[in-house]
């Protein structure tokens, strides 16, 4: 396996949802790609565009979002290294939302044509990518419930639990400590709360002894209690390896 390939990130992500055979792994690693560095808060893809490549996050945090006509933004999902946040552009020609880098990010752009050739040749890879897309949909269902029905405290705690569980699954969160460089505004846009509410809620989570937040690094003080507070059940992430700290 070409361990130097940037695409090992993709393998790690696919590995977290299915088990791939050596020939599938080799085929993934042989995909052509170009690397692009994206500055913090810059768009990778805009709503209405017609991409001919899919992007793979290599470094940083990326989000999908929709901007309303009055300038209010709803963040739809977060994406971490190994995720392909615009996989649906393989089949849906027009972007119906935008994708932006939350932190400085590095992404690999892989031509749609090469991904199509790969999935025709390697059915297991096609399965893995389909499964990733379905998990994406499952995460959206959870977010609808989160934004629609949970209290402010539960919503913010839930997003923190999810980010931690997903980062752990691809080996990017240490024992109980992980970097989640989200600003209060980004947490607010993801949870449908105001900036003021998120600020208050973060202080409440600290006061309850659930998290320690030092700038943008979050330490989870009590994982069990945090999950309970958030009403968090990682089943919707459909991870092969669960990640209790």
């Amino acid at each position: 396996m070409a361990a130097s390939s940037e695409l090992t990130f993709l393998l790690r992500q696919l590995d977290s949802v299915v088990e791939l055979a050596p020939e599938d792994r080799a085929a993934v690693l042989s995909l052509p790609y170009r690397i692009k560095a994206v500055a913090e808060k810059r768009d990778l893809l805009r709503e209405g565009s017609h991409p001919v490549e899919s992007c793979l996050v290599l470094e940083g945090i990326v989000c999908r979002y929709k901007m309303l006509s009055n300038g209010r933004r709803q963040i739809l999902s977060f994406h971490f290294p190994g995720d392909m946040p615009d996989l649906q552009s393989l089949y849906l020609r027009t972007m119906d939302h935008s994708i932006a880098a939350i932190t400085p990010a590095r992404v690999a752009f892989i031509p749609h044509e090469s991904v199509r050739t790969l999935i025709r040749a390697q059915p297991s890879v096609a399965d893995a990518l389909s499964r990733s897309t379905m998990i994406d949909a499952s995460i959206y269902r959870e977010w609808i419930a989160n934004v629609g029905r949970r209290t402010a405290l539960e919503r913010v705690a839930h997003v923190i639990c999810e980010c931690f569980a997903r980062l752990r699954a691809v080996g990017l969160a240490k024992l109980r400590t992980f970097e989640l460089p989200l600003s209060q505004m980004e947490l607010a846009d993801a949870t449908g709360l105001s900036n003021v509410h998120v600020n208050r809620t973060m202080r409440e989570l600290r006061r309850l002894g659930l998290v320690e937040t030092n700038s943008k690094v979050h330490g989870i003080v009590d994982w069990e209690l945090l999950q309970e507070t958030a009403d968090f059940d990682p089943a919707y992430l459909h991870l092969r390896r669960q990640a209790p700290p």
Partner: protein
Amino acid sequence: MTLTVLPVRLGNVDDTDGVLVYRGEVLVAVMSQLSAEHGEREGRWFLEIGFGASSEPGADFQTLDAAKVWIESRLDEQDRRVAEAIARRGPG
């Protein structure tokens, strides 16, 4: 029961009869009494806004006393959890 209520008129289109709910001198919730427009829910007490631990979007109660019992239990529960967190961390 440490909660007290102060009747107020609310600026809703409907359901204009309400109360401010205080715990001591602290305003913890604003409630309205549902009008006949709500059919069989008429007369129930709707939590317009609960501050802090008494936040629960969409909650309503048969009586104002039931609402007060619920709000107080939420606040007490929160106090208990914070006290436990402090105890776990130890003094300081």
